[in-house]
């Protein structure tokens, strides 16, 4: 209870490894602390741990300040590269009206993000629908595993952009080609992680299933699925990261409405402020997707 209310340095050290290993964590902490340490729920008002709060908030703030400081210093005399202040002004204007629509090539940043997210959701959703069952089959049957592992090893490292022409050729349209590229790039982590998870289900659990003589359905729902779930969710998390990486590249080439296309469009307009804003937006959305999946993973994982 105490650690939930007061952010002592010890509580920071206790955060799970998955959370700490996430490189983008500081940016999120920056946004959340003012809301979380409110001692409203505490029955007795103990002295507030300002030092603990400071220890948690100060380092990320300093990090961001350092980045902006260096950026400001470097752009002091530059005429082509915008300063932080100019970029901030542009961002305020941009986000004042995120959902305007003036024809297919001029839409608000909100629309661009939503269109990109929609493509990611489609491509990634299809990849999950195919990849997770495929991972189960590959993990469960040694023959299938040997059949497909060389193929997976061969196709996994292929750059997303190499898949795009195939998509354009087959679908003869930009949008399905982009979705196809996301699909093929984000499927591998899910296949591989699910397969590894199935192979690592402890023999003890399978022996329990055999002694109890459980039906295939019960083995699947009560033993395999819960045991594999943590592995599967790691795969899903990696996949979402990949999908969000791929979409920017794919949209740059295919055009349409989307954050990747928007970056390229602003480059053609030589509007560098907007490109920098886009970089931050892409980073924040990617971070949000990852955090969302970490939350889901925590919700469904059992504590050993």
């Amino acid at each position, binding site marked *: 209870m105490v650690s939930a209310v007061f952010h002592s340095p010890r509580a920071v050290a206790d955060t799970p490894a998955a959370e700490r290993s996430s490189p983008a964590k500081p940016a999120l902490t920056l946004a959340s602390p003012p809301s979380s340490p409110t001692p409203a729920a505490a029955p007795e008002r103990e002295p507030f741990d300002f030092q603990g709060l400071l220890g948690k908030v100060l380092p990320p703030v300093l990090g961001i300040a350092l980045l902006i400081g260096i950026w400001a210093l470097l752009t002091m005399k530059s005429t082509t590269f915008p300063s932080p202040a100019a970029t901030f002004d542009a961002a305020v204007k941009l986000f004042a009206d995120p959902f305007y629509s003036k024809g297919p090539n001029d839409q608000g940043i909100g629309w661009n993000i939503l269109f990109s997210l929609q493509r990611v959701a489609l491509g990634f959703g299809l990849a999950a629908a195919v990849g997770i069952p495929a991972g189960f089959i590959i993990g469960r049957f040694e023959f299938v595993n040997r059949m497909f592992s060389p193929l997976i090893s061969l196709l996994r490292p292929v750059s997303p952009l190499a898949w795009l022409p195939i998509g354009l050729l087959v679908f003869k349209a930009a949008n399905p080609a982009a979705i196809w590229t996301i699909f093929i790039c984000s499927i591998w982590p899910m296949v591989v992680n699910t397969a590894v998870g199935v192979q690592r289900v402890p023999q*003890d*659990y399978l*022996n*329990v299933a*055999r*002694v*109890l*003589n*459980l039906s295939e359905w*019960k083995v699947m729902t*009560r*033993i395999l699925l*819960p*045991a594999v779930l943590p592995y599967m969710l790691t795969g899903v998390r990696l996949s979402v990261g990949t999908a969000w990486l791929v979409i920017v590249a794919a949209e740059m080439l295919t055009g349409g409405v989307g954050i990747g296309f928007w970056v390229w469009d602003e480059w053609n307009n030589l509007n560098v402020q907007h490109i920098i804003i886009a970089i931050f937006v892409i980073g924040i959305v990617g971070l949000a997707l990852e955090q969302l999946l970490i939350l889901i993973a925590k919700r469904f994982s*059992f*504590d*050993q």
Partner: protein
Amino acid sequence: MNRFIQIHNVEMTFTTKKGSFHALREIDLIVEQGEFVTLIGHSGCGKSTLLNLIAGLTKPTGGSLLCDNREISAPGPERAVVFQNHSLLPWLSCFDNVHLAVERVFGASETKAQLDARTKAALELVGMGHALAKRPHEISGGMKQRVGIARALAMEPKVLLMDEPFGALDALTRARLQDELLAIVAKTRSTVVMVTHDVDEAVLLSDRIVMMTNGPAATIGEVLRIDIPRPRNRVELAEDPDYVHARKAVIDFLYTRHAHRETIAA
């Protein structure tokens, strides 16, 4: 008393990457209904292998195993196993772990309320009635083992197979669980085959102790009948001449004579 488990001339050879390994040879053993038999021997003598064969988890490479006059070809709920490391499913509560077994065995013939009652009764029998909703990681090692025993007992098996069930526990917890097991077995009149490497445990619990020679190609060296009347009390037994004599016989086999296993083999 009938011949409940019959093991005839069983051979077990494992095929590994390094070649074949002859684990068991010429195993002959009969276990009667309601009997408590322990298998004892040094590490690697194949006692767990023999238990797995009775459970049906592995198939013998030679000979035959019968349970209640039927051949053992696969594992089944009538031969419940208590595993060495409890093997509870960590994502299910204690209740659900036991309920999984109860549902499998009685699900077709009983109502949901009856199944729940059976599950609760089994957990109460092992003194875990207070922890129905707890997950395995929230309870101690001894408690997990109790739930493992409850899961096995709840199936009302014909035979209870136990693979070093108390091996991972501290001495005090082990003693308490042994006493509870004695009481439960006296109440349920179960047939039990138990693997152990603890001489005191074997003498305290068993009707017969099956002593195994060292592997590879281990076999049954000697069978010792323990005629100490039940109920048995560990404090009183400590100075009982029969107990001391039986204990001495097992230690003598394990530490003095097992080196000459070729001459002992019956």
